[in-house]
């Protein structure tokens, strides 16, 4: 009451009022900007899906679902027939083989880093393994063409054929070394760092008490891993593997370089093949006809469906079953 008489008080009150109004505006603005950024991400995703499906429209109209099963791919004017069967097969074969090869190695690396390596070793080895993911895929592919493929042809193919040749996957050695097998090896190199860094974090989040408890009951280190660490993190490890699979499915450049662009469905890994993503990368810039381009968009639609499914399942598993908040990084 008495303070109202002095002239300073109304000014202070007004200033406070302004400030409060400003704060309210600032809060709302920052909230709006942040929310808009988040929404923009979702909008872009929807737009991407829409444009790709739109681009594929002519091919979807013409071939329908038979595009998925047919494996004829003749882009020249006179034939103009397209089918992604062999590409779908090549995509799945190369990626799953890479996962088969890469996941056990990557999980072992995760175990090594989280449970066996002393801190000093871990601090050196983990960034080095993650460096593998930092190598640009185009350089990995270039290395694959010039160095890995000749080595595969001269050494690995004959060796595998001689020892486990009774499995139809490992047929007669071929002439160039450009093959589904080589592509799988490149993909393996790409997915190992992804899976291993996620699984390392998972393993490190397993409570010490549980491991110590198992040890106190006389379990050896392997038995602790087998009985405590792996079961508690199994869902996260599966999610990590799916994440790696998603990466392998979508890789275009490195695969296009080393897979040899074949169009047949072969069980033999040493023959050439092609994947959806690689076919888009290698043929889209020089597409011959409308329909050719639309078919490549159709491939992109298939890839989008498979890739997004792998990622969604991974993040669903990660959320649903996570013991220790199985989160990437």
């Amino acid at each position, binding site marked *: 009451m008495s303070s109202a008489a002095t002239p300073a008080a109304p000014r202070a009150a007004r200033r406070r009022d302004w400030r409060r109004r400003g704060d309210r505006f600032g809060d709302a603005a920052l909230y709006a900007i942040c929310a808009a950024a988040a929404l923009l991400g979702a909008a872009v995703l929807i737009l991407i899906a829409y444009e790709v499906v739109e681009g594929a429209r002519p091919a979807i109209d013409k071939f329908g679902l038979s595009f998925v099963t047919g494996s004829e791919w003749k882009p020249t004017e006179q034939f103009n027939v397209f089918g992604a069967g062999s590409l779908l097969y090549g995509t799945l074969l190369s990626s799953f083989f890479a996962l088969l090869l890469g996941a056990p190695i990557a999980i072992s690396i995760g175990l090594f880093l989280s449970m066996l390596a002393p801190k000093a070793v871990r601090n050196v080895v983990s960034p080095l393994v993650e460096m593998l993911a930092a190598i640009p895929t185009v350089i990995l592919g270039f290395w694959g063409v010039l160095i890995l493929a000749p080595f595969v042809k001269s050494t690995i193919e004959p060796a595998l054929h001689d020892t486990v040749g009774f499995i139809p996957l490992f047929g007669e050695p071929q002439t160039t070394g450009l093959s589904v097998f080589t592509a799988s090896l490149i993909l393996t190199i790409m997915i190992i760092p992804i899976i291993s860094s996620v699984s390392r974090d998972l393993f490190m989040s397993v409570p010490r008490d549980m491991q110590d408890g198992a040890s106190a009951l006389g379990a050896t280190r392997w038995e602790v891993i087998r009985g405590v660490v792996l079961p508690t993190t199994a869902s996260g490890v599966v999610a990590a593997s799916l994440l790696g699979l998603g990466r392998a499915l*979508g890789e275009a450049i490195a695969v296009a370089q080393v897979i040899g662009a074949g169009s047949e469905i072969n069980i033999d890994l040493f023959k050439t093949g092609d994947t959806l993503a690689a076919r888009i990368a290698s043929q889209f810039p020089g597409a011959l006809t409308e329909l050719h381009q639309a078919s490549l968009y159709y491939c992109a639609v298939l890839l989008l469906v498979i890739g997004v499914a792998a990622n969604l399942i*991974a993040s669903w598993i990660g959320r649903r079953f996570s013991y220790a908040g199985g989160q990437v990084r």
Partner: protein
Amino acid sequence: MSSTLGSGGFGDRPRAYDPAAPLTPTGNLRRRQIFSKFTEYLATAAAIGAIAVLVIVIYAVVQHGIDAISWDFITKSAPEGVAPALVGSAVIVGIATLIATPLGVLIALYLNEYAGRRAASFVSLTMDVMNGLPAIIVGLFFFTFMVNQKGTLGLGQAGWIAGLALSIIMVPLIARGTQGVLRLIPKSQSEAADALGVARWRTVLSVILPSALGGILTVTILSIARAAGETAPLLLLTSNGDISRVVLNPFEALASGPTRIYTLSEEANPAGFTEAWGLSLLFISFILFASLGARALLARSKRKTSS
């Protein structure tokens, strides 16, 4: 249990006394321990194998690329050098970084400061999907949407569109990384600000962001290293870049390192391989130094904040 003890322990013929005997594992335990050791060796071998692959790849790139590297190679245009590709890559990645960093940081802020549980899980799902989006599809989208003359906007190939495409790849990386950095900031700091009656946006701008700045920088460098080597989108969006002169204008098609390496490797002309190896060496060394440096920085700042 007691019967085996009775028959084995006392009754039979006496042996020479060995004080270490009870401590030496035998039988089943011995087998279990050997198996455990064996798996440990396997895990170690896996780690060594991964590093060996890294060393082999880098060694090959250095061995073949070192001959190509010279001052002219870096500073001149084709046919002597690759300057246009380097400058083009820098422009494209620069644009991508300018777009992606603010967006990524804002999304992370939204997730950490504002979003309720459902909104947060929706947005992080979006980020997951974006992160898993094949790069070639991002490129295809921008080709249809902006580049293709018959498409929606029909702008033709341009460096800035490639930058936009790379920013789509960088945003989820930056958002995820920044989120991790923000989580490391002690809650007590923003609580102290709240207690003083500071508005939320002031807290964000003057307390949270300054203490996260180092981490955000690191995250940005890491995602730059990732984007610099990305090829697939560039192949569709800016493949017609002129390699005979340095172009700075992002509204033209720009040459870039990755597309150049790809073209050279597809041409299968041994003369071009030297150039490709040289470019690979330049890119790999930039990427390795950038990401190792950034990681070291991150580790240091983590130690600082946690202690």
